[in-house]
């Protein structure tokens, strides 16, 4: 008996690891060995399945059975019942929150039904620490195709025609960015991967790097070839130790196979990648600040122009793209721009990964085609609001975005539609709030974050965010008057209009949008206005509100 018949896929993403999936995998291996099945069943640690709410996740292949919330003690049942006797362990199957039906197969779950996985294509499918598994699923063929069959112009053209836009938040067309960097005359150019994911509640980039690091390496090499750079840098925050270690392993493996290094695929193109660690400052996600930090300077933004494409890392033309943007590149090269641009809306092509968080049933990572509505994401994929409460608002774009209320839930989401309803795509954080959340507190939370993270280079950002936070604090402690609300509004627009970089230009957005949609909640805190709303359940909670106002 020597043939493997079962792969036991254990999620090895940070979320599941935090709930003991490492021990689950170890126990599974031990028990399998004790039962004498180690030839037939292999335990494989893989990347994030996205369904973090239900972690740790264990998937049995080829049976296609999906177990959720598996603890170290459940390993025995999985081996004895499923692997040895072929019986599903019913109690570990996923139960749909609405109709209490147990579901064994991944594709039958509401959570996965509407998803389309391009950037996350290998997450949960392969062992991220094994380059051969990546190659088995077509990995590095895009790089081979680009280097041996396509000219640099053709690569740029393919990416441009695909309509791919930057997934870090700005939404700038990636192909155009590559074209600009390519057209710069310089001996030395750089390509940088921005893995400084700073939005509270966002973990798309981390999961891609943890689950499929080779896709990013391959794409950086393709990008390097296209723009004429022989050096790549991954700028990643030091708080992502697992992503860093998997990335290091992946880079080492690529070098061993000659997929990084000199004369890749026997062409005259050479390329290698370095890793630079960030200390976790939000502003370092801004590309000029990121480049400063890479150079060992303070992570502060510079005035643009010159853009990094003109004068970037050590003054050389530099192309900065986000992790998720890169993850989309290999499929575009192998399957073609036409295939990619057939997905999505008119101006936003492809898919977008969102990190669902907050008061939602299915917290996790989802990837949907552009043009999916917020309602589908929150109620179909996300399973609705926790505890049967009522939906109030969803914040997209993290601290730079705004809240979106119920009336806009049917907007098909893409870069432009989100801007038109007063929010933004951002990097893909999606925080859902229910009826018990107070929106002034939400705005205060975000301002506290941006106040801390503002680098201090420009006065508007440094002092403005501080004063905004102070006014919000005054409001929530019930000491503010109508004049303070006016001041808050005025200052918001001032900070928005006069800050140096994107961080503080967008920092007042949570205030502006909550004031627009939830003015009554601001009024409720004002001492010269008699109004009865505040935090907590609205009906019958008047006393509590009054107490809060007096406090």
């Amino acid at each position, binding site marked *: *008996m020597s*043939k*493997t*018949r*079962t*792969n036991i*896929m254990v999620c090895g993403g940070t979320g599941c690891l935090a709930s003991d999936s490492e021990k689950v995998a170890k126990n599974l291996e031990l028990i399998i060995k004790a039962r004498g099945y180690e030839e*037939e069943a292999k335990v494989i640690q893989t990347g994030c399945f996205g369904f973090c709410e239900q972690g740790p996740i264990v998937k049995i*292949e*080829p*049976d*296609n059975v999906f177990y959720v919330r598996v603890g170290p003690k459940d390993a025995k049942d999985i081996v004895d019942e*499923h*692997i*040895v*006797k*072929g*019986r599903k362990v019913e109690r570990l199957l996923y139960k749909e929150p609405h109709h209490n039906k147990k579901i064994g197969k*991944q594709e039958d779950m509401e959570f996965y039904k509407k998803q389309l*996985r391009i950037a996350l*294509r290998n997450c949960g*499918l*392969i062992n991220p620490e*094994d380059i*051969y*598994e990546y*190659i*088995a*699923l*077509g990995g*590095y*063929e895009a790089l*081979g*195709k680009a280097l*041996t*069959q396509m000219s640099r112009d053709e690569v740029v053209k393919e990416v441009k025609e695909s309509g791919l836009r930057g997934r870090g938040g700005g939404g700038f067309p990636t192909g155009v960015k590559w074209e600009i960097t390519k057209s710069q005359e310089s001996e030395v150019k750089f390509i940088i991967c921005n893995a400084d994911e700073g939005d509270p509640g966002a973990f798309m980039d981390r999961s891609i790097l943890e689950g499929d690091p080779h896709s990013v390496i391959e794409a950086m090499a393709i990008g390097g070839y296209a723009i004429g750079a022989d050096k790549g840098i991954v700028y990643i925050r030091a708080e992502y130790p697992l992503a860093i270690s998997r990335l290091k392993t992946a880079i080492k493996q690529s070098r061993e*196979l*000659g*997929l990084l*290094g000199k004369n890749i*695929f*026997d062409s005259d193109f050479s390329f290698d990648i370095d890793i630079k660690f960030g200390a976790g400052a939000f502003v370092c996600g801004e590309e000029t600040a990121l480049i400063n930090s890479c150079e060992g300077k303070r992570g502060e933004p510079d005035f643009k122009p010159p853009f990094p494409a003109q004068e970037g890392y050590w003054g050389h033309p530099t192309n900065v793209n986000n992790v998720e943007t890169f993850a989309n590149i290999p499929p575009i090269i192998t399957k073609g721009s036409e295939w990619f641009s057939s997905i999505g809306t008119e101006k936003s092509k492809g898919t977008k990964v969102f990190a669902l968080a907050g008061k939602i049933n299915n917290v996790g990572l989802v990837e949907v085609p552009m043009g999916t509505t917020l309602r589908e994401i929150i109620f179909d994929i996300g399973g609705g609001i926790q505890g049967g409460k009522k939906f109030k608002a969803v914040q997209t774009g993290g601290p730079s975005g705004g809240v979106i209320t119920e009336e806009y839930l049917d907007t098909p989401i893409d870069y432009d539609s989100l801007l038109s309803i007063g929010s933004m795509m951002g990097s893909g954080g999606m925080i859902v709030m229910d009826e018990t959340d107070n929106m002034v507190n939400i705005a205060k939370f975000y301002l506290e974050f941006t106040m801390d993270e503002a680098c201090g280079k420009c006065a508007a950002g440094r002092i403005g965010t501080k004063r905004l936070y102070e006014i919000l604090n005054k409001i929530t402690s019930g000491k503010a008057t109508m004049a303070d609300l006016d001041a808050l509004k005025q200052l918001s627009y001032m900070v928005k209009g006069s800050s140096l970089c994107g961080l503080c230009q967008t920092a007042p957005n949570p205030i502006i949008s909550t004031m627009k949609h939830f003015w009554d909640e601001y009024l409720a805190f004002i001492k010269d206005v008699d109004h009865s709303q505040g935090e907590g359940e609205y009906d019958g909670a008047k006393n509590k509100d009054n107490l809060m106002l007096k406090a």
Partner: protein
Amino acid sequence: MKVKSLDELKKIREESLEKVNLREKGDVKGDKVEILVGMSTCGISSGARETLTEFIEEIDKSKINNIKVVPVGCIGYCHSEPTVQVNIPGQKPILYGNVKKDKVHEIFEKHLQNGEVVENMVLDIDFERA
């Protein structure tokens, strides 16, 4: 070893496929033939585990990749264990009884490769259960 051409990469891909071919890939869906092997106590004691492994080896030798072998529980035919059910999409499921290791080759060759049911081993049961 360094990869020097696209062909070399494709060769590595071929060699690595067995690492992942048990898994459900995103773009290959639908027409999978299923071989269900009864693996309850009675099945195992009659040699179901050997039967199952034999199927895996046959599949591996034949390089057919749309067949998956799934261990399942007892269906109540303990007198005829090991039992093997073959599900071909669009066809009535066929249940075989007494499939010891040495019978696997015949079923595989006749039924799965050439589409003819091995009548003398079929257990006559009706799948139209309530």
